[in-house]
């Protein structure tokens, strides 16, 4: 969970609170010495909390920029990108200087029209020769990179089929015996330093698989059999996004790539292959009943139970996931309850209906689902 590009789950207010409180209580002690006016203090305190939160966010604001990459393909793309960016800036600067200089330079006075045959050499050198040299270099560099990225640096050891749905991602792990094949959702675990082969498929419309920190994007389109490879060079949690407009909730179609050591990955794989954990606590057992009685099983599968729905994400190990709702909420009991009870408010138009449950039922359902680690 470290390294550049670690975005992790979206931080919740509750998790940030402790830190803010420490900052503000310290400031508050000083402020109490200054004034006894509680209204003023409250206002100032709010201001300070705001400022601290802003600083905190600015500090944590890790954007998924592809200009610094943690991926084998992404770093070559970034190197090409920086070269092109620098050339582009240089060209813009050159033209801007020539333009401003041309506008500002002193001239003999007069308003008449002049014949002027000079200046055509500008076209020969600036308009033809310079672009040919620059473009030839850029095109060569780009094409060398393109052919270099065609094949992964080594034989991929991990094969995953990524299926795009409106609006979530399904990951099907293909390695091993047929009975070892399993599904997970919105989370792609990969071992660090190993090329991973991805088959890209779509269940409905065109989507595009994009993990900016690791590699460029490739479309998932119905009827096409696209594939790509990715390789993470550093462990971390990387944000993935859908990059092709796919309708109402295109904005909320995210996922996470968890790159971990081969050992951690192997452990995760073993956990995921196992059927769902049998509930032990009474709360969880009641939750299992709620799940069976509510419409959940019509859409979701929990391996080892009667729930075999194929419409929504496989929930066999939902408790182990980092996020909910296709990468948009951190997977905490609170957020899970919120997601079940008001999915249509959080993600209007998604195919997860709002489920009406009594508070007690909701609580046991969440306990059960959270226990499925």
């Amino acid at each position: 969970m470290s390294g550049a590009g670690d975005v992790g789950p979206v931080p919740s207010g509750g998790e940030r609170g402790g830190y803010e409180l420490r900052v503000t209580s310290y400031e508050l002690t000083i402020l109490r010495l200054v004034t006894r006016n509680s209204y003023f203090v409250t206002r100032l305190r709010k201001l300070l909390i705001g400022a601290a939160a802003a600083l905190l966010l600015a500090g944590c604001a890790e954007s998924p920029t592809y200009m610094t990459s943690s991926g084998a393909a992404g770093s070559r793309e970034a190197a090409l990108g920086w070269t092109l960016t620098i050339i582009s800036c240089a060209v813009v600067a050159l033209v801007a200087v020539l333009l401003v200089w041309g506008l500002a330079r002193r001239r003999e006075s007069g308003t008449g029209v002049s014949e002027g045959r000079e200046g055509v050499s500008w076209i020969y050198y600036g308009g033809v020769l310079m672009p040919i040299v620059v473009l030839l270099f850029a095109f060569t560099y780009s094409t060398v990179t393109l052919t270099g990225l065609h094949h992964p640096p080594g034989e991929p050891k991990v094969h995953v089929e990524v299926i795009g749905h409106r609006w979530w991602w399904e990951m099907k792990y293909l390695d091993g015996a047929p009975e070892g094949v399993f599904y997970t959702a919105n989370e792609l675990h990969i071992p660090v330093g190993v090329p991973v082969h991805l088959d890209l498929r779509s269940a409905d419309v065109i989507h595009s698989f994009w993990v900016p920190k690791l590699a460029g994007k490739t479309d998932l389109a119905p009827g096409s059999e696209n594939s790509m490879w990715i390789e993470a060079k550093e462990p971390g949690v990387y944000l993935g996004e859908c990059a092709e407009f796919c309708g109402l909730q295109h904005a909320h179609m995210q996922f996470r790539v968890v790159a971990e050591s081969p050992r951690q990955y192997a452990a995760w794989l073993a956990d995921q292959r196992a059927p769902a954990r049998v509930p032990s606590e009474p709360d969880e057992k009641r939750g299992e009943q709620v799940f069976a009685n509510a419409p959940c099983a019509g859409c979701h599968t929990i391996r080892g139970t009667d729930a075999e729905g194929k419409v929504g994400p496989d929930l066999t190990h939902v408790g182990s996931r980092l996020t909910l709702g296709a990468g948009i909420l951190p997977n905490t009991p609170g957020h899970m309850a919120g997601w079940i009870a008001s999915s249509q408010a959080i993600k209007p138009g998604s195919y997860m209906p709002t489920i009406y449950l009594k508070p007690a039922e909701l609580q046991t359902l969440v306990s059960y689902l959270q226990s499925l680690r």
Partner: protein
Amino acid sequence: MATTAAELPLDERLSRIWETRPGLLGALSSVDHKTIGKRYLVTAFVFLILGGVEALVMRVQLAHGALGILSPEEYDQLFTMHGVTMLFLYASPILSGFSNYLWPLMLGSRDMAYPRMNALSYWVFLLSGIFLYSSFLVGHAPDGGWFAYAPLTEELFSPGVDLDFYALGLTFLGISTTVGAVNFIVTLARTRAPGMSLNRLPIFMYGTLTVSVSILFAMPPLTVACIFLFFDRQFGTHFYQAAFGGSPMLWQHLFWIFGHPWVYIVVLPAMGMVSDIIPTFCRRPLVGYTFVALATVSTGLLGFGVWVHHMFATGLPTMTLSFFSAASTIITIPSAVAVFAWLATIWYGRPWFTASFLFMAGFVVLFVIGGVSGVMTAAVPFDWQLTDSYFVVAHLHYVLAGINVFPVIGGIYYWFPKMSGRMLSERLGKWNFWTMFVGLNVLFFPMHILGMLGMPRRVYTYPVGLGWDTWNLVETIGAFLFAVGVLLFIINVAWSRAFGDRAGVNPWNAPSLEWSIPSPPPVYNVAVIPTVASRHPLWEPELIGEQKSRIHEGPTLTDGRETMATTTLDAQPLAVLRMPGDSYWPLLLALSLAAFFYGALLGWWWLIGVGAAATFVSITGWLWPEPPAEEA
């Protein structure tokens, strides 16, 4: 009667021949290219404002992450209609407006080659614009993006009339575009003043000629794509449905075979305007006229070989990618030629810093920024990161706002005196320029950065805390600044139309023929058909020491509506063209087509039948031979 008419002064006689009947009925029948040109300009500008308001609402929603001002449905409709409006209803029609208004004046002709087709082209444009916008009235504007990728736009995923408005609206509009293009090509080939050989044309005309030819080849793929989509949606065909043997890629290929040439269609005439206006204000001919003319034409041609660069991430083979990457790289060279021609013209000229010139000079910078970001997207491996991120939004807006809107506004500052007889305020114009220039850069430059920070495009909201919020807020501020600039422009036009200084015939001491005509031009354009002897007819005394072109003497052609036809290459006199008079048939034909398309939209077969029958009647009436013209 005949004798008294012949004794009238020439301008009186010509006015009687060419004037349109007063009143609303007359206005509806007018085929005067100046009237049609102004209608095009005003209508397209109204669409610019509509598209701009849509953009402002979106910018408010995106000012910060996780705002809930717009629902996803509303946002999708707004960004789709913003794209459709700006690309189809503003960017191309506004340039048609300039060409319509200016071409006959620049050519020393009395009208376009096909005046009634010209009227048809406008009416269809107006009605198809209304057709597309009527979707808002029923709350179902198209919401699949201006690119409308199948299968998202198929009935299964987009039920309702939203995408039917799109498919039918663009097919309808395509009639206008095609008819207009044919008219421009024939006008250029046949109605130039004697002596105006192809190497004496303003570059602007090369721009419009190139794009008119491009339109003839680019529109059919779009029309076919839209009709296939409509058939898929309404009649159960499977052109784009993989499950039934169709292909979603077919849509993308058809759309971009149209779409990329379209990008050049909406910029080349504007670049041509720049190539003509910069020399006027630098008081010297354009450096490398022939190079720039050839660059214009070759850009139009190469523009047909680059469409796949919109599809680099669709999983095409490496060889295909390399080919289209190379083509997309090469197309930069003609643009570089133009840039250095402009730079050299400024460098070796004596710039006159009018508001119009400022727009042209600012344009050069925006053009280069939009150009180099285009080269970056031509590099396939890096494009896999750039495409569908905000970087591309930055690139395309530098291209469209920078290369289209800036020359258009600067062009209005330049030609408004000709059109209205009054100057626009220069003082306000400079405020106008700086507000728009700063606004545009504050609005669009950060989008490059956001793209590089990994922000995808076409999202109605985005998570906070990824470092995207600040830049988005900056953009929203820039958007409003840009809008203030546009507002200043509107104020300037409104005020100057009534109170501006009188313009005179040639306020800028410009070289081309339209500046030999009074401002505003008389209804018949030119009292005599001029004879042209050089590229800069009005600069001849200063450039070659004597006035060789004959501007104020030549054939008067007063036997009815007539103009001179000349040969295509050298513009040798060929014949006297008899021009049609005002007519209601273009409007009736356009209305018939509108009935047909509304019938198709609503699935009302009777209305389709009525529209088809009325179309047939209108065409018959249009083609019915006119009785021989009586002498007025």
